[in-house]
């Protein structure tokens, strides 16, 4: 930190102004977002000798502050870095500091105090209420500039440690807190496409960057493990021109323990655990794996869910087995399931009164995914069913498997109708025109999870990631209460 005698600030026209020119004297630190600063400056406006306003503002804003408060004494501006406020350890504005000829502090007044200011300046001031008022936080207390004047958030962008949004800098302390005593050198594998090694330390750095709290970390670790399972083929997903990203579905008690949102707004935004866990995985892919959009990630369009996509199943609103149990894990365990998927397409159905009609609406919505004449889809579509839709199925005694089969059976078109102007599959081209082609080649391609708030009949389907041989992968979360 610079000694006070060496600090050079700006005047309101942007010219340089050594602070020492105002020694001895009274330095009044203030900024324009603080009502107490405005009050104090108006009360001090007529003082002419031995006082200077040291505004925590850029020159133009410092000039506006002077005009608003009608101060007639000199005004100095502190650019980014707030060197003078830091040198005098200003935490509150207004603060008046009387310094001697070498800039040493003789007396300080914090906030507005009529009597204290009269003594400090050895002059009388107009006596108006309030005669005392507490101050506000100095900009040193909440700006993002460290002591060296380097904006740490901008520094993260310059390093490229971002997904395009501001991140939390991964300081050694934060990363160690995220690790929680785990072995930082433990390797979860190599992340395509550059095959950077996902040590726990690097994964923790990504979790910090993403804004995770340490209690989310076991879910992040499980998600990275699942993503690196060769069956998931992250290699293909990370570099494809397709828009698909990696969707995390979380099941089990860990959801409620860390506050994952399963209800209203289940697909986001608004909920830190969902957003930061999904973001941490994407940062591992983009940074540790080098799959950064526009570079090795060659997605033509991408989609907003590639920033973060973490769904927690609303098991409490579901009469069916949760996804992880359906996939073989014990009830009571916690797990993540990774699905390679496109952006969600919302499906409104507020009128169906039979499960058959609802299944048809849900199923036919998937025609819009991938490509409309490309039948059948030979990989997974992820359905997120809202509780009201689930209630209708359940009221008619339908289990999840029956829903899946009903969707599969409902959506068929004759091959002749699919040989239209658009692209289609070899199967369609080879089939007799009257052959009914299903939307999916197998009912097992239809994944079903339950999420969302209690009101509203909006479900969603997440389109597939074709051609990647990307299997759905479930991993248990190593977690304890």
């Amino acid at each position, binding site marked *: 930190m610079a000694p006070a005698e060496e600090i050079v600030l700006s005047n309101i026209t942007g010219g340089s102004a050594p602070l020492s020119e105002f020694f001895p004297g009274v330095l009044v630190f203030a900024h324009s977002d603080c009502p107490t600063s405005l009050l104090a400056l108006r009360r001090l406006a007529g003082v002419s000798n031995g006082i200077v306003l040291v505004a925590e503002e850029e020159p133009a804003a410092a000039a506006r502050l002077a005009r608003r408060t009608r101060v007639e004494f000199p005004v100095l501006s502190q650019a980014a870095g707030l060197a003078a406020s830091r040198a005098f350890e200003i935490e509150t504005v207004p603060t008046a500091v009387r310094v001697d000829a070498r800039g040493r502090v003789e007396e300080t007044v914090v906030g507005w105090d009529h009597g204290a200011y009269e003594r400090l300046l050895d002059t009388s001031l107009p006596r108006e209420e309030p005669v005392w008022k507490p101050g506000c936080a100095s900009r040193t207390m909440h700006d993002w500039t*460290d002591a060296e004047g380097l904006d*740490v958030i901008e520094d993260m962008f310059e390093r490229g*440690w971002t997904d395009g949004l501001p991140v939390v*800098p*991964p*300081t*050694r302390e934060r*990363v160690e807190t995220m690790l929680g005593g785990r072995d930082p050198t433990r390797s979860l594998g190599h992340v395509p496409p*550059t*095959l*950077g*090694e996902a040590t726990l*330390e*690097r994964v*923790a*750095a*990504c979790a*910090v*960057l993403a804004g995770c709290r340490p209690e989310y970390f076991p879910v992040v670790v499980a998600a990275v493990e699942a993503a690196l399972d060769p069956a998931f*083929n992250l*290699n*293909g997903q990370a570099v*494809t021109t397709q828009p698909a990203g990696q969707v995390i579905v979380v099941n089990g008690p860990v959801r409620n323990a860390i506050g994952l949102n399963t209800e209203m707004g289940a697909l986001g935004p608004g909920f830190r655990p969902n957003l930061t866990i999904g973001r941490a995985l994407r*940062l*591992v892919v983009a*940074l*540790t794996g*080098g799959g950064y959009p526009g570079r090795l990630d060659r997605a033509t369009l991408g989609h907003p869910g590639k920033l973060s996509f973490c769904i927690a199943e609303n098991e409490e609103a579901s009469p069916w087995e949760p996804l992880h149990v359906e996939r073989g894990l014990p009830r009571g365990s916690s797990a993540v399931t990774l699905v390679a998927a496109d952006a969600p397409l919302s499906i409104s159905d507020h009128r169906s009164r039979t499960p058959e009609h609802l299944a048809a609406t849900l199923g036919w919505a998937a025609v819009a995914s991938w490509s409309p004449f490309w039948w059948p889809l030979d990989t997974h579509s992820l359905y997120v069913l809202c509780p009201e839709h689930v209630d209708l199925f359940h009221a008619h005694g339908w289990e999840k498997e029956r829903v899946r089969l009903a969707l599969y059976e409902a959506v068929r078109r004759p091959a002749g109708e699919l040989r239209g102007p658009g692209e289609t599959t070899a199967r369609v081209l080879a089939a007799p025109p009257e052959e009914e082609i299903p939307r999916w080649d197998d009912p097992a391609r239809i994944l079903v999870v339950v999420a969302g708030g209690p009101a509203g009949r909006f479900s969603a389907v997440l389109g597939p990631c074709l*051609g*990647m*041989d*990307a299997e759905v992968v479930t991993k248990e979360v190593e977690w304890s209460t």
Partner: protein
Amino acid sequence: MEYVSPIDTSTRPPEAPNARPPEIAGRRVWLLDIAKNRSAEFLDRLEQLLSGEGAKVRRARKPTFSKPAPEEVIEKIVLHGDLAVEALAD
């Protein structure tokens, strides 16, 4: 401020390909089909042109375009080839 990098800086930098030979007559040229739709059509034409220049053309194929070529495919090309062309189409 000390930060923990999310990036593995030990990642090996990409290697530059060998210089293009002055002529291809008599050279063993592998054409690697990455299994994209219609890759074969493109490579058929390439094979025709290369053969016309006197190259000894051989073909290899990846099982899927979305995964790296299996080691045995890479090894075959490295051990028994002078040049390789990896091609896609769609």
